[in-house]
């Protein structure tokens, strides 16, 4: 239906096809070609939120602890700043990270269960796809526990232990935060190996490995040569 509309008046609709082709579901790959019942993996998207929120939370607490140092800088930039405002970012972002990370880990395990990585290669760290997934899964649970633990620790310092102090956050908390940054870097690299090297849930990689040219993705749904089962990627 949509195809007919586009074919008949493609001249008029030309500018819209640009956007349309970007949002139109790609029939060839819809469910299945990436090994998932949806178009793109969810876990990497939630990872944006987990990492962004956690790293910014610790960074702002760090900035608040060193408040005296950057105060002249903010004054120079004509940005009013209060120390408690910076600590608020440290606290609320950490709460956000803790909540969202349950979903990040859950989505990650679901997508690990549906992964069918190539068996004939190792990662840049010399690990097989299976080992990489195991480490990434275990690491995910550990990081979730650490993030929740940090949130509880932060809450205790904010509302009980250091409630009356100008420096709301202890150096130990920040030390652990920086250590978790390092863990996250290692952990994220394992995740990058799964996507970028093994091509887990990457549609094009799976098509290439199955001997199919991913350029067929370019054919908009309204121009596709109908049903050649040979061309359709198998759902496993």
């Amino acid at each position, binding site marked *: 239906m949509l195809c007919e509309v586009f074919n008949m008046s493609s001249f008029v609709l030309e500018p819209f096809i640009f*956007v349309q082709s970007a*949002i139109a579901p790609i029939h060839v790959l819809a469910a299945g070609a990436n090994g998932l019942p949806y178009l793109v993996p969810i876990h990497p998207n939630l990872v944006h939120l987990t990492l*962004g929120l956690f790293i910014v939370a610790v960074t702002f607490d760090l900035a608040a602890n060193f408040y005296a140092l950057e105060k002249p800088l903010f004054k120079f930039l004509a940005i009013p700043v209060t120390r408690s405002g*910076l600590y608020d970012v440290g606290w609320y*972002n950490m709460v*956000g990270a803790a909540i969202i990370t349950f979903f990040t880990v859950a989505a990650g395990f679901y997508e690990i269960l549906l992964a069918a990585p190539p068996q004939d290669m190792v990662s840049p760290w010399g690990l097989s796809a299976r080992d990489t997934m195991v480490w990434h899964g275990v690491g995910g649970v550990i990081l979730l526990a650490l993030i929740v633990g940090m949130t509880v620790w932060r809450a205790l310092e904010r509302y009980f232990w250091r409630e009356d102090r100008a420096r709301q956050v202890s150096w130990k908390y920040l030390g652990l935060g920086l250590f978790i940054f390092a863990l996250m870097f290692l952990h994220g690299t394992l995740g990058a190996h799964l996507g970028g090297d093994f091509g887990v849930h990457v549609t094009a*990689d799976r098509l290439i490995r199955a001997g199919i040219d991913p350029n067929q993705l370019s054919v908009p749904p309204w121009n596709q040569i109908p049903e050649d089962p040979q061309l359709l990627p198998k759902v496993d």
Partner: protein
Amino acid sequence: MLENLLPPLNDHNLPYPDTMHPIVVHFVIAMVLFAVVCDGIAFFTKNYRLQEVSWWNMVFATVSIFIAIIFGQFEAGLATPYAAAVGDLNLHTLIGWSLSGVLAVITGWRYILRLQGSKKLPVAYLGVNAMLTIIVLFQTYLGDKLVWIYGLHTEAVVEAARGGLLP
């Protein structure tokens, strides 16, 4: 010239181990979305302390988007997109650069609102927040397509492109 300054390209077609752009965009996607959520909660609960949180998150997002664009442009240049991926890569580039302007304008507006010191945010600002959310989500979806559907910079795609198999 650049080839002589940088290490040789690896099997992701990059002079460094993994793509940087998807890492830097953590700080745009997460911070913008969290800022919008905090503004929303502050609006309904009148916990105006959260508006300070969203302001700083917007500042962080605005600084980050320019770094994201620099890496994005560099990695797009090395992406060797095949025919199927070109359209989405171009649209992602166009929206990305535009979004830096949109985000800078909104954060600038927020800076003024914060200086003026009135607690309640104008409804128009919340409307702009909603629009910003839609653009960011769509832009993220396009980036997802580039990585997870077209597999740009993944080993298999780079290998196929180098072998001349991906016109």
